[in-house]
């Protein structure tokens, strides 16, 4: 199953126990959602040690913000939003770093991200997917990650990214165009 969906009452209990400081309950939440968070972060940033650090930050932020979680949205959506925000912040940081030292900025950042991959034991399909993702603009990359790696619908993607549905739809078609060009160059 691609999207994590668990019983609401069990999750409510896990959230409640975690707020009270129950280590095991929070460990259960981490165990349930780490795959989902890994897909978002590694899809956006590539498969590197930095991604694991950002993943840890996601769950640390989740732990300290759980008391503010009212249960209006699904826990998975709440976690996904944190993951997306932290990932986009990391991309901004990288962009700032590269633009400070080079006029090429974005191009060098993409090169860094592609080179940063751990290629050991990588299968062809995964390699192609990763390269295609890393060559896309971040605003399209996040859409592709949500759709291709998380299996979200257009509506769910819009909700998680906090974008109007129309914006997501227009980005979908532009991302598809960009992706086609990238894949043609890759093959």
């Amino acid at each position, binding site marked *: 199953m691609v999207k994590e969906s668990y019983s609401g009452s069990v999750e409510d209990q896990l959230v409640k126990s975690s707020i009270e400081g129950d280590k095991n309950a929070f460990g259960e939440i*981490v165990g349930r959602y*780490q795959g989902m968070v890994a*897909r978002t972060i590694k899809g956006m940033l590539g498969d590197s040690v930095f991604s694991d650090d950002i993943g840890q930050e996601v769950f640390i932020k989740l732990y300290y913000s759980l008391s503010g979680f009212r249960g209006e949205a699904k826990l998975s959506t709440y976690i996904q939003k944190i993951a997306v925000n932290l990932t986009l912040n990391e991309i901004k940081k990288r962009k700032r770093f590269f633009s400070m030292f080079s006029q090429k900025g974005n191009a060098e950042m993409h090169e860094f991200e592609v080179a940063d991959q751990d290629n050991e034991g990588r299968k062809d399909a995964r390699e192609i*997917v990763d390269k295609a993702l890393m060559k896309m603009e971040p605003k399209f990359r996040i859409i592709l990650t949500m*759709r*291709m*790696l998380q299996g979200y*619908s257009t509506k769910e993607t819009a909700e998680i990214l906090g974008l109007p549905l129309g914006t997501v739809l227009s980005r979908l*078609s532009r991302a598809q165009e960009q992706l086609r060009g990238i894949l043609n160059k890759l093959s």
Partner: protein
Amino acid sequence: MKPAELKDLIINSLSVDNNTEDNMRKLEELGVKYSFGEGFREKVLDRIFSAAVSVNREVEFVRSMSTIFYRIALTGVAAIVILLISIFLTEGSLSFNSFLGLSNNYDESIICLLTGN
């Protein structure tokens, strides 16, 4: 799977009417899987709960310091009150001179005391 089919699969994931979950499952079968390193969960829990322990220790320290200060302050106040009462009982007043122990001495006797004559 042929490269062209894989390409279509990736591109189709951006089609509005595409079944994204089905697409994702096919990609997973081809090895497109992502996970964090070993011991990820333990690392997260360690970072959260060891930080919580150190915060608790700090809170405990501040709490015990304030308890100690409270006790010292109370003892000090009690000592001052006892001192004032004893001064009042021995000197008969709480004037500045009685605090300094000079209420029963004349200026001349102080000069004699200081000069030794």
